[in-house]
């Protein structure tokens, strides 16, 4: 059975009352890259980008990452 990693960014954005644009600015990546993360099309993420995401959303990696069966 194959697994996939899902980025639950929307949940944290709602909790922090932050827009996608603001998140993209804080992390230093484009809005289209945020969409790629949300849509599950990303093939890899740099550790530094994950750290910036967690810093911007004030959360742990486990709060935005989820592993589930395809």
């Amino acid at each position: 059975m194959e697994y996939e990693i899902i980025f639950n960014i929307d949940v944290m954005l709602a909790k922090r009352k932050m827009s996608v644009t603001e998140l993209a600015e804080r992390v230093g990546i484009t809005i289209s890259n945020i969409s790629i993360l949300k849509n599950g099309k990303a093939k890899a993420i740099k550790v530094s980008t994950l750290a910036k995401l967690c810093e911007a959303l004030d959360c742990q990696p486990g709060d935005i990452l989820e592993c589930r069966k395809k």
Partner: protein
Amino acid sequence: MSQKSLSNWLKGMICGVGICGLLICVLVLPMFGGKLGVLAGNPSLYWTWLILLWLTSIPCFIALVFSWRIVSNIGNDCSFTQENAILLKQISILAGGDALFLFVWNIVLFFCNMNHPSTLLACMFVDFLGVVIAVIFASLSHLVGKAAELQDECDLTI
């Protein structure tokens, strides 16, 4: 040299090769083919060889069209794509197929007494060139395919 100017130069080269190829097929071969047939002592060979050479030139022009598409992609900053890898593979198949076609017909015409040993030898050299081109383009196709995969991974790394 920028990618756009490189693409323009390559397009110019393809146009030049295409025009030269057309001139050879339409003017040079018909003009000199008849004279060579007379020198060989068998003018009736003229049409046989002319049609054979025209048929072997068709894959070359198709390969030029594919090359044009590859060069257009390079100009649009899409050098390392699966599309380019497939086009390079198709050019390789065309070159190999063309070489095989020429080889087979050469042997057939030789056994039908419609060929000369020197012509057979010259065509073997052309066949060898065709195989070399096929191998080179197959290698390029493989490398571009691998590069396309790397590019994809890089583009989708956030």
